[in-house]
């Protein structure tokens, strides 16, 4: 019998891995593909002084915003933190630190961290504040800045479906940062909308192989919020 990766709920899945001051990667782009229930479990844990690697910081009452509300976050490593008043308040009060990364650099740093690459060069940010204090080097006549791979002690991610081995598939743009983060943490915990039997997936369709997944929680219910509801009118026939 293989190690059991399936946990009864989010609190159980995070038991023993949460501690004050730790660095956590959290998947999602805006409110799309975020690990809502795992974030709630971190709130419930009461852990403090957390550093989050996450593209965004949620909204006031959603995503990582709920951990800002409860003042559990000390630092964010993100690319964009608009849409969040609490963030602005805490930042201006000096309670919250922010390290901005260009979105593609952030994604690649996480991918590199998971792939055993401690540093790589990119054109992004050359000649900007992003390159300050970093090595800039010329390759074939172009300048590049050296960026470091990024790892975390814990990754919390959201996927569409998992099998008991931890093989994952994602749904549409809810994929975003989740697959890279799954590879870049000491422990990866995933919440899923569906848990399917082993062998249900076509092995060509699996996006995150189970090797990257330590713990799985099947969600009881799934609530997905839309940040910018944009629609077009139907033209009457």
């Amino acid at each position, binding site marked *: 019998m293989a190690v059991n990766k399936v946990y009864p709920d989010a609190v159980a899945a995070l038991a023993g891995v949460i501690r004050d001051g730790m660095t956590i990667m959290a998947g999602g782009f805006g409110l799309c593909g975020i690990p809502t229930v795992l974030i709630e479990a971190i709130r419930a844990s009461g852990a403090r002084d957390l550093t989050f690697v996450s593209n965004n910081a949620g909204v006031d009452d959603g995503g990582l915003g709920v951990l800002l509300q409860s003042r559990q976050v000390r630092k964010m490593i993100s690319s964009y933190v608009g849409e969040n008043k609490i963030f602005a308040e805490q930042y201006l009060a000096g309670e919250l630190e922010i390290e901005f990364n260009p979105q593609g650099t952030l994604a690649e740093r*996480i991918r590199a961290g998971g792939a055993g690459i401690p540093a790589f060069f990119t054109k992004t940010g050359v000649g900007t504040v992003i390159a300050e204090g970093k090595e800039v080097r010329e390759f074939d006549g172009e300048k590049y800045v050296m960026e470091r791979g990024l790892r975390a002690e814990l990754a919390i991610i959201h996927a569409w479906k998992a099998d008991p081995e931890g093989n994952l598939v994602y749904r549409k743009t809810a994929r975003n940062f989740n*697959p890279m983060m799954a590879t870049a943490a000491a422990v990866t915990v995933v919440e899923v909308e569906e848990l399917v039997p082993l062998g249900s997936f076509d092995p060509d369709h699996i996006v995150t192989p189970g090797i990257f997944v330590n713990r799985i929680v099947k969600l009881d219910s799934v609530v997905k919020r839309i940040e910018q509801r944009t629609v*077009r009118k139907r033209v009457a026939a």
Partner: protein
Amino acid sequence: MAWTREQMAARAAQELKDGFYVNLGIGIPTLVANYIPEGISVQLHSENGMLGTGPFPFEGEEDADVINAGKQTVTELPSTSYVDSASSFAMVRGGHINLSILGALQVAENGDLANWMIPGKMVKGMGGAMDLVAGVKRVVVLMEHTAGGKPKLLHRCTLPLTGAGVVDMVVTDLAVFDVDRRGGGMTLLELAPWVTLAALRAVTEADFAVAPALKAA
């Protein structure tokens, strides 16, 4: 007579070529999708991991899992594919996106671009803008010519840069400029109707040459 936002978008859309993969920024650039020239097919790239972004959904058909980089609900096309964020920016950084059309706070005559922060104001972050201007083959800026009456086309940007030497073309409500990001400076290509060269120079800090075709006209 200054061009409208729609006219600006239509002008920028003329930079599209058949088969192009294009990233459109938030704001006026979004309008470009409405002016894709006939007979031309382009695929729109959303840096959050969608290639082949379709129009907004009909009311009631929104899918929270189908959003663009502006976090707006959009739709799939038959050509659509989804990738993770690292792969999406590999398209950008690797030079696979043909054209990026985006807004700006300032553009300098050397192609420098500033569009992500104003010192003293709360900084929201650069999102994917630095990656796009550094990685996309051709960068077209679509912006108002001035802000509060002050020129946005400058000798040197005064705001923190998004990218150094990255802009290839600027379309404003008054004019269209070519920018040689390799040090060749700016060249005025087109003027909005009734706008004189003198009037343009009065609201433009940047030096620019005038294209021969325009001089002749």
